[in-house]
């Protein structure tokens, strides 16, 4: 006899623990790649590549890369309708880099 996972989880974990689990899941799912960010905005590669003045193949390469030129990343984020900010974090101090 199998049991539904949700009922098991809800009976085992306290409301606080359930809230922490939800937050962790959200963080894990929202640790977004560029592609995840684009998909979250319901935009296709074709739409973004047109706005970013790239070919779809270039855009696909940008999404699969783990290292980016800041200028390319800026073009991509702006094509999604966002704005790129680069911030350096030193312990509790956050510094916005203006010439990146």
């Amino acid at each position: 006899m199998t049991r539904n996972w949700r009922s098991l989880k809800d009976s085992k974990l306290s409301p606080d623990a359930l809230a922490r689990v939800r937050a962790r899941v959200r963080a894990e799912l929202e640790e977004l790649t560029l592609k995840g960010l684009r998909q979250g905005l319901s935009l296709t590669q074709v739409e973004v590549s047109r706005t970013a003045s790239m070919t779809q193949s270039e855009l696909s390469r940008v999404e699969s890369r783990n290292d980016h030129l800041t200028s390319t990343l800026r073009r991509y984020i702006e094509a999604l309708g966002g704005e790129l900010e680069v911030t350096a974090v030193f312990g509790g101090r956050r510094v916005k880099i203006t010439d990146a």
Partner: protein
Amino acid sequence: MYDITVTPEFEKWFEALEPNAAEQVATALEVLESAGPALDPVKASRYLLWYDGVGEQAGNGWTERLIKLHHTAEMARQLTLWQKEVVRCLESPAFTSRLTRLDRGAAHRALIAIERVKKRIHAGKVHINLVGDAGSLPTDAVSVKRALFEVLALAGLDPDDLVDSSSGLREMTLEELNPRVRLIYGIEVPTRRILVILGEPLSRAFYGDSVRLAERKWREYTSVTIADQRQGP
């Protein structure tokens, strides 16, 4: 979203977990519920662990050596899983068909990138054999993953186009718990159903009993669900 049910064996094990471990396991299953088969091969492997070869039986003076051995084994595991993923992706009909349609220049670039993947895998194996130290745990597997994604991009494919949509048993390892914990589950992609069969700490050297139990439970479950589907609503 996938519909997750659990076996009585998993239920009993989960009920007995201490709170922090239960939260970690719940988090992993909630992510699985959303991602289904799209988890990467290190997180959700099709290859069930039968034999660890290390275990956790640390005797006097062996702790440090065993920790190193664990890290080396984990590096090798991740590299092997990515190597298998490379083979699966590059042998997939979607990739081979795309490769044959590329123009000469693009095909040449894709083939060079495939050579790069092979070199990364080879370098990873050499690194593990020669060094095997704990300091660079994910590097080799990550570089293979990057190189594979580069090949796919050159062929105009997205990793999501090649998600392993086959049904069957999988295992997920929770590295953040000590000892590590693994969950064995079966996934039925067409019906979007997941059966979580068991959870266990990775604290032994041999897990044949667990794998056999998981295979039996999965056979029973799928025979029931197939019968249900035949009967219809």
